[in-house]
Structures are given as structure tokens and as C-alpha cells.
């Protein structure tokens, strides 16, 4: 049985109308909206590569029915920085600390890390590890990802007195 209904959702700050969402949120993002930053790896919620924000909470897009996303607000890796490709502080830290090797898991890592830093402004190393251990990386970039997250947390803490809510993605 195919679910057939027109629905609306906001992705990275932009409103989209989707006629017949039949598959998963990941299909919708990658195939219908051409947002290929979010990756398909395991297709069953084991690896975290397809992690996106749904109404501010992380979900696996491969396990989320598109039809269940009517009226929701989605943020993908493409929405973390500016429309022009400019980067937020977390993305910049991933570059500075070489937290992406092949880069295939990176979009999911970034969304998971973003979510962690929203929930914990100053996470301990064990909190980082607990929050990020659902995101697999075969290149073994983990130590660098930890460092990048720690650096962002420290920098945000430092600048919190002078700067307003850094790193908030469009539509989040």
C-alpha cells in the first residue's frame, strides 16, 4: 500500500511541498530534494550516516517514513552553514582538526555533534563518546572528531559573553 498525500515540510529553512512521499525521509531528501549530503550506508539504523534533525531532534532518515514528516522541520548537513556554502564553527573545526578523511560519514557525524552541543554546551569526553558512538567511521577519524567537538565547545564558551547563539542552523 502506497501512502499518497500532498504534504509540506521545511528543510534547511525552505518550505517544500511533496506530492507523493512513498519511501523514507532519506529517499525524499536525496532523490526528491537532491540533498545528497545525507548518506545511505546501512539502511537499517546501524551506522548513523543518515542522521538529520527532525524538529530539533536527531533521527535516522533511513528509518523515518517520509509520509510521517508532514509539517516538520528538517535540518541536514547542507543546512548547518550558509546557503552559499559558508560554514559554521563546527564545520570549520572539523576541517581544522582533520575530522573528515573520506568524508562519507561526516554529514551524520556533524549533525550528531551539532545536536550534542545544543544539549550540552560543555560536554565531557565521555559524554561526547556516548553521544557519538552511534555514528560509525571506517577511516577511524574518531580521535579527531572528539578534538573538533571539544574545540567548538571551548570556543563557544569563550565567546558566549560577546556573541549571540553561534552555530544555529537555518530552520533549526
Amino acid at each position, binding site marked *: 500500500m502506497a501512502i499518497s498525500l500532498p504534504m509540506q515540510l521545511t528543510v534547511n529553512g525552505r518550505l517544500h511541498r511533496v506530492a507523493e512521499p*512513498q*519511501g523514507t525521509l532519506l529517499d525524499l531528501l*536525496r532523490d526528491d530534494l*537532491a*540533498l*545528497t*549530503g*545525507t*548518506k*545511505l*550506508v*546501512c*539502511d*537499517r539504523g*546501524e*551506522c548513523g*550516516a543518515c542522521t538529520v534533525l527532525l524538529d530539533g531532534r536527531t533521527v535516522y532518515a533511513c528509518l523515518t517514513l517520509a509520509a510521517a514528516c508532514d509539517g516538520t522541520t528538517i535540518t*541536514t*548537513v*547542507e543546512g*548547518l*552553514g550558509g546557503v552559499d*556554502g559558508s*560554514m559554521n564553527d563546527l*564545520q*570549520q573545526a*572539523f*576541517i*581544522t582538526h*582533520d575530522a*573528515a*578523511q*573520506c*568524508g*562519507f*560519514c*561526516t*554529514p551524520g557525524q*556533524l549533525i550528531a555533534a551539532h545536536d550534542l552541543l545544543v544539549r550540552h554546551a560543555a560536554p565531557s569526553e565521555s559524554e*561526547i*563518546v*556516548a553521544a*557519538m*558512538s*552511534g*555514528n*560509525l*567511521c*571506517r*577511516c*577511524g*577519524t*574518531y*580521535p*579527531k*572528531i*572528539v578534538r573538533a567537538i571539544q574545540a567548538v565547545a571551548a570556543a563557544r564558551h569563550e565567546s558566549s559573553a560577546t556573541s549571540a547563539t553561534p552555530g544555529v542552523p537555518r530552520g533549526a
Partner: protein
Amino acid sequence: MARKAKPKAGGFVPTTVEVEGRTETRIVEVPAFEPEPWTTDTPLHIVGARVPRMDAHEKVNGRARYTADITRPGMLHAVIVRAHTARGHIAQFDASAARALPGVYDIMGPGDAPAKTRLFGTEIFYHDQPVAAVCADTLANAERAARAIAISYNHLPFAAIFDDAAAPDAPLVKPGGNFAPQSPVIIERGEIAAGLAAADIVITREFRTPVQLHSALEPHGACAEWEGDRLTVWESTQGIFRTRGDVARALDIPQSKVRVIKDYMGGGFGAKNGAGPHTYVAALFAKRMNRAVRCLNDREAEQVDSGNRPATVQRVTIGAKKNGTLTVIQLSADVPLGISGWEGGPAQIYHELYACPNVRSEERFAYINASGMQAFRGPGYVEGAFGLEGAMNALATALRMDPLALRRKNFTKKDPRQGRPYSGNALLACYTEGAERFGWNTSRAAQTGRVSRGVGLAAQVWPTGGGPPSYAHVRINADASVDVLAGTQDLGTGARTVLSQIAAEALGANLSHVRAIIGDTEHLPYAGNSWGSMTTPSVGPAVRMAAMDAQSQLFQAAAAMLDTTPDMLDARDSRLTVRNTDRSMSFADVCKRLGNVMIYGKGSRGPNPANTAINTFGVQFAEVEVHLDTGIVKVLRIVAAHDAGRIINPTLAESQLEGGILQGMGYALTEERILDRRLGMVMNPSLHDYKIPTMADVPQIDAFFVAGADAAANHTGARGIAEPPVIPTAPAIAAAVADAIGAEVLQIPLTPWRVLASVPARR
């Protein structure tokens, strides 16, 4: 400008190149000039700098396009149907129901693919062998149709493990016999009997290693599109030119009609060295339907049938004098290759890591009815290190000798196989600095409650000279921006960045003006596969030479503008200066005056130095914690000291070390493909059931490089580093576990059950 005359320039000479333990002789052109080597003392500004990965921006903002992200107008989707028997024949094949389903464009089954693709025969040799393929408008429709194809089989007896294939009454695994053509492979030096007689202590052990799966997060995949008789293939591959050759050969078309493109790639680790069934399926459907077609492995296909590190059984006899001097090393190994593969066994490292006059290895390579092996990061050496280093640690215990002292005692100053001098070898410095940073001399096993700690170490050697042929071009554009063109590929290793650094350094350009253009067979000069830790030492020298050639032309052009001669010019940061004057000119101003005159430098990789062994060395130290009641092993820290000659970019190289260590840790603790002997099926084809390390498993890692430039290896002074770090990790961890539980460890992965079974009863 640093050049040294080469009398033979322009001619062709033979040279030897070592690829993953196999030595090949190649006939190569001698470059027009051979640059003076960059030595440790050469002042370099960009090479050696911790430059951020130059393609990281696209990776963190989601714009990087991987093969799995490629779409073309009107693109169709293909799905491969796989066999449900480990051995037999297709009795009936009925695709009529599948053809009638909505969105289905085409189906290929038995007999429908050209013979040279070796696809879709009626005889089945392993479970999950491709037997058919479906092409549809959407992936979902293709998958639905694939499930609707009805296939029945006449089942035949099969062999899914080495012993079943090697048994006297074994079923025929495939035509031609159950053993690989070269099997048994025997390599020996000296006399084993003399070595045994000379030994004061001899020990014998049997080691077992599992099948490890590459598990790259981006699956194998291709998108194919024809324009007339010309085919373009986007492929996630470690070798664009090899893929081009495979496709041209299989489809019987000229290489000039095939273009292979690879931009970003989500890991390879050795499994993506050429075209595969997905490539041919995409290309064939694209031809038949006159539409672009994409074919990607799903995760299950990726885990069951895209290559693996084969299992080994290694029976090792090792003997030494009381003072630790090795007198004999003997290996007898069994390796089940799967249905295909090459003789990449564990023996090489037994012959290469230590000075020992009497060494003999005999490797038996059997085919079994299972998916074929492929090279996996450090192939053979990773497996062999577990046996050799395990035996060395057992020997050290038997000798009551410090395992590090035993290794120092048997350090070899020359390549022990052929007696060649090394281009460079800082293994002793690795031992010293690694031991110091680890605190080896003060680390002792200790038990707190039911948790026991232990330490261990293992060493590593790996051929990393790289070699020709490899070409590069460096083009200076009219605005002084610089293109580096090389037909290589970046797997996530950092090749784009490293080659840009070399070009910027050699040209005297500002790095931000330099861009490496790679991964396209149609527009780029040849480079070989990115395997065998070869890209930096193979392509790097060609890039440097091309940049020097471009610089030479730029100097010629600018000399008149600056009222001087080319030999009086220096370049740095995209600015020319006349030596001993204050006259200078930016590259941009020179290029502006030149207009569209193109400065186009060419470079090629020269022959390897004759009679020289080029290797990367290293040692890793591990500290683990073992819970004696649960058998759970936690790796606390790894100290890794490696000598890879000059490091072009320390940040990226450290990432390679950390990544290798973590893959080695997975091999030691959790990674094992489970193949059911009775069904011939892989029982854990998912990332849930096949466990790769997560962030929660990561120990404290202190990974670093020892030594400086290796000017004798090639003129950049850099050797390879991708594979060496994965080699010693598992034996180091196993040694630490053995230290913690007070019993030897002979088999990996060290699952809790295996550890519990090894813990002595008294503990």
C-alpha cells in the same frame, strides 16, 4: 634550479616496483631530468606543513559528490540478483513475473552478458554470486522486480572452509582444481635443519586469523552513460585507469572510448581496485536501454561479496640462541582464498622483518565456495604479523627475555632476503622513541580485583617505495592560478592535499592558488592504482618534476621582464625575486604580460634506485584491560612509532596512523565474517552483526613519526604510510591480552568467549 644531468634521459630502462609484497619488473622511460632530492636539510615551507585537507570544505558542507550521489538525466537503477546456493546449477530461471511489474525496463539473466564480463553463467560457485540483474525506473521498483525473479537450483556439494577443500575426497570447488595455480608457494633461504640444530630454544605454535571485511561506508558502485559508442563510467574506485582497462576489455571496446571518473570516494581499503559486476551491469543496461544507469551495492551485498581479507592458519616454528639470536623461522600456512584471488599470503613478513639466516615458508592457497578475497590494507603482512609477532613474543617468554630486547637483537641492517641496503631504516629509533613514550621499561602487568592489565608490542615492515609509471602536469593559468593534473585518486587519504603541497613547494607558488585535478581518465595523464601505499611516493615525484618544469618556463619568460637571467631568479609565495636585488614580480603580473601563453610543465616518475630495499617500518605498544569474569578486553592506549621517510603533511599522516590502528584493533577484537560451513552463507552481513570499532572503543592513541627525509627512496624523500599502521596493532593487542591473563593468545578476534576460554583456571 636543482637538476642533475642524467645521461640516459629519454631512453627506457628496467626497474623493480614492489606492490603489496609482490615484486614486478617494469620497463620505464627515464625522465628528461632527475631533480636533486629534497633532503632532511632542504629548507621547505609547504611540504611538511600541517595544511588542512584541501577538499574538506566540500566534505563538511555536504557538497562533495560521491559515486553514490551521481545522477544523470533519465537515469535508471540496476539491482543485482544473487545466488541462493553455494554450488550448483541454475535449473530454472523465470523472469516473466518480474518483467510484468511496473517500472521494469530490462532484465539480464543466464547467458545475457558478454563472456568477458564473466557474469550470469548458469553454474554457481558461491553463495550470493551474481546470477541476474534488473533495471527499472526507481531503485524500489528494481528491488521489487529482483525479488519476483524465480530461480531454482540443482545443488552440488561444496567446500566452504580450507579443510573441506583440501580433503582427499573434496568436491570440486571450481574447474581447474581446488588449489591456486602457484600453490604451494615455497620461499626459503638457508637450511632449516641447520637452523634447528643451532637453536638453544625452539618453540612451535599455531595461529589463526579471521576473514576481515573491508566495510567501506560507501559501497561499490558505478553510474554508466553512453554517448554513441563512447562510455562514461562514474565509479568509486582506487584505480581509474585499471577500471578503464577492465571495462574496455570486458566490453571489447577501445580504451579511448571509455572514460572513468572518480571524484570523491567513501573509502576503499583495497576492495575497489578495478571494475566489478556492478560496473558491467550498469554499462550493459545503459547500452541496452540507451539511458544512464546506476548500480550500487546495498550493504548486504557489500558485506557478502565485495572482497575480504582471507583467513589464515599459521603453524610457526621459531628458534634462537640463548642470547636471543634467531637461528630459524619456519612457517606452514593454509589460506582459503574464496572462489578467486591472488596468492597474497602471510609469508612475506616472516622473511623481511628480522635477520635470520634460515627461513622457510610454505603457503597452501585453496579455493573455497565463498566470495573471493581482495587486497585489504596491508594484505598478507597483517595476517603474517599476528603469527610472526605472536611467535616472537612466545619466544621471548621462553627465553626469559624482554620482547623489545629480542627484537633489537634481531634487527637487520640489510633486507634479509636479498641483502640489499635499505634506502632508509629507522626501526631502532622507532623502538627507542616508542618505548620511551609508552613507558615500556616501567610497564608491568597488574591485577585490580577481577580486572587485569597487560602490555605488549609488535613491529612492522611494509614495502612502500612506489614507482613508475606515473605522470603529472602542472599548468599555470593566465591569472597565475595553478592546476596540478594527475590521473590518480583520493580515497580519503589526502592525495589532493599532498600533491598540491608538493606542487606549490616545487613551483614556489602560494598553496591557496594551487588545485589538484585528479580522478578522470579522459583528461589526465596516467597514474597507477592507489594501493600498496604507493600514491605519494609514485605520483609525488612526478608532480614535483612537472612543477619544476613549469617553474623553469616561468623563469625563462620572466627573466627578460626583470632584466636578468633565469638562473638569478627565486620563487616563493607566487612571487619571483631577482637574487641579491630588491627587484621582484608576482606570478600574476608575469602571467598578465604573457596573456594566454600557456606554461605547461610535465613530469614523470623515474626508475627506482637499483638494488635498494624501500620499506616503511614501525612498532606499536598496547596496554589493555581484561575483565577476567566476562572476557571483555578494553584497549587503554596505543603508542605507535613509524618511519615513513619525509612526512608531507603530519596532520594527514597522523590520521592515517590512527585509522590504521583502529582497523587493526577491530581485527584484534571484534571483526570476523561468519560463514556457515553447511550452508555456505555469510551469517553476519550487516554493520550490526559485523562489528567495526565505534568511538566508544577508541583507546588513547599516541601515533608519531620518527626520522626525516629518505632521499635515497625518491627525490621527494617520502615513502608510503597508508598500510603500515594496521600491520602491528592486532599482535600488539594480543600480546597485551596474553600479558594480562597470563596465557598465550593464538587466535583473533579476541571475543569475550575466546578470552574466557584462554584465562587459566587459577585466575
